[in-house]
């Protein structure tokens, strides 16, 4: 692992930004730099999954990466790499109708994007039919639903039911729920999997979707 990846893994913000500037002076391409940072972020994700890092560290790593992107912005290509369609996604992710919690959702989306997944962030308080349209538009094979209220169980259930009902018109979709959930809630709403923390969610998506080829381009990472 290079020194930039290492500094990122250690969450050493000052050092990361110094190294990014040096790399630019040395003539490294912004995409190479982004890729090095991403390697470091991957280590952060791993350390989180085995309990060495915490939510605070995840949030900090995403923040440092944002800083890096801000530095690199003038150097990054504006157009998406060939073959990449802007509205295609692997995962549609949102908080269900009536629920506006977004912290867990945002952190998990950051981690998923570090892994190279294309995630469509639907936002919060999303009605079932909007999820269905988003699945149609993006062609996503995974729907991730977040909910932090017991009263949201019904909204999750309605969403899952509608997606199942619309199945003939959609690509095959697997549904994962997260937040205030467990096996019981999963069965009740009819989802395929449930998670209480971000790392597990990423592992499940990796199992379902396979490892994504790391593109290392702005299009895949810019919105982290």
């Amino acid at each position, binding site marked *: 692992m290079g020194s930039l990846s290492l500094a990122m893994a250690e969450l050493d913000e000052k050092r990361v930004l110094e190294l990014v500037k040096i790399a630019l002076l040395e003539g490294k391409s912004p995409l190479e730099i982004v890729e090095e940072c991403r390697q470091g972020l991957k280590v952060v994700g791993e350390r989180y999954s085995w309990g060495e890092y915490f*939510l605070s560290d995840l949030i900090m790593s995403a923040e440092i990466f944002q800083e890096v992107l801000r530095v690199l912005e003038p150097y990054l290509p504006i157009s998406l790499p060939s073959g990449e369609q802007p509205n295609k996604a692997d995962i549609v992710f949102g908080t269900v*109708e009536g629920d506006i919690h977004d912290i867990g959702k945002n952190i998990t989306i950051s981690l998923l994007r570090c892994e190279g997944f294309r995630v469509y962030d639907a936002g919060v308080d999303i009605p079932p039919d909007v999820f269905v349209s988003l699945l149609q538009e993006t062609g996503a094979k995974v729907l991730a639903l977040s909910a932090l209220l017991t009263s949201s169980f019904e909204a999750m259930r309605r969403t899952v039911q509608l997606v199942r009902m619309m199945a003939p018109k959609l690509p095959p979709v697997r549904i994962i729920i997260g937040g205030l959930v467990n096996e019981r809630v999963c069965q*009740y709403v009819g989802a395929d999997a449930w998670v209480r923390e971000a790392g597990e969610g990423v592992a499940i998506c990796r199992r379902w979707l396979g490892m994504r080829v790391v593109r290392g381009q702005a299009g895949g990472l810019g919105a982290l």
Partner: protein
Amino acid sequence: MAEERQERMLALWAEGQNIQFVNEEAKRAYKERAIRLKDAIQLKKVPDRVPVCPLTGLFPAYYAGLTIKDAMYDYERTAAAWQKYVLDFQPDAYIGMFLAPPGRFFEVLDYRLYRWPGRGTPPHTSYQCFEAEYMKAEEYDILIQDPSDFWIRVYLPRIFGALKSWEKLAPFTEVLEIVMTCSSFLPFGFPEVQAAFQAVFEAGKEAIRWASIVSSVDQALQGQGFPAFFGGVTKAPFDIIGDTLRGTHGIMMDMYRRPEKLLKALDVLTPLAIRMGVSSAKSAGHPLVFIPLHKGADGFLSDKQFRTFYWPTLKKVIMGLIEEGLVPFLFAEGGYNSRLEIICDLPKGKTVWLFEHTDMARAKEVLGDVACLAGNVPITLLTLGTPQEIKDYCKHLINLAGKGGGFILSSGGVIDKINPENMRALIESAKEFGSY
């Protein structure tokens, strides 16, 4: 000293001297319930049985068939709903109607910090916090220098649309000699500031209308033999900053980017958090001070961060309340498994810890000699389980955490909409399996 103060506070509360009881039976029942809680808390005597006090949020409203919109706007119907819940289910203590805050009050002030039915959430869903950076990273010095001034001139104008013009107010500490007085009052002549005060007057009237109904519910329920579960409320200094000032994202960054400022601000807020707990509990004549804990849960902070940023000032708040004879009631949302060894550094019989996802066997082992435990029937089980499953869970939990006293049976989280039969199963369990 703290020991005697606590004994006196708890004994006075259990006596219910200022309560107008409807009859002798109600008086006897009130004392019996309060003493049951007192014994569970103090760890000196084993109570007659495990007390049961579910952490009801908006359950009484749902149970009475009200929407949450009704509960926040129709105070009279909400008051009736609260009484119906307590009288129908007979918990050992109830949580007051303050959990259904007055919608019109917040409308008048154009409150931005929360969404509620009619203002961003559907009528049947609970109010929810809308997290944002209501305090900016570079504003720590303003907060540290003069917290009240920060609240009045920076924070309130951001969370209440109607108080936006309070940004224009002058600091009151500049009112000194006769020639140094008038200028501080100029902003009060501005039309927009006067409009803000009109809104405050109207909100004040609405608050009184609501509070008088809340207090009539308390009088009625206590008069019929049911103690309130809590007297006062306060928060951990880290959560004061992390929940509603800087937000989760903001405070997490601050631990890395400006740790010294954050620590200083936490210190500045500590005596204010103690003051809040003491004044609210004393005015209620009830020693239990509810402290919901958020950002210190397992997974949020590392052990080092918890020990550096979260625990020291929370412990000071706890000790400050204990010093006044009060009983801090810590509602540890999420898991506290990795914190048990840290939080057990407290005097014996002075606190209650209500756990959600914490392993209750380990909690009893590590904390059981120091504090009364409470909890932790999962909110998911209460929402989706059957009455029999709930009874099975409670029986096991009582055997585990209730051994030798020092335990209050409750839910692990706040109960909103559940099947009433599940509430009944929870409350009956203490009576069925909880006798010592």
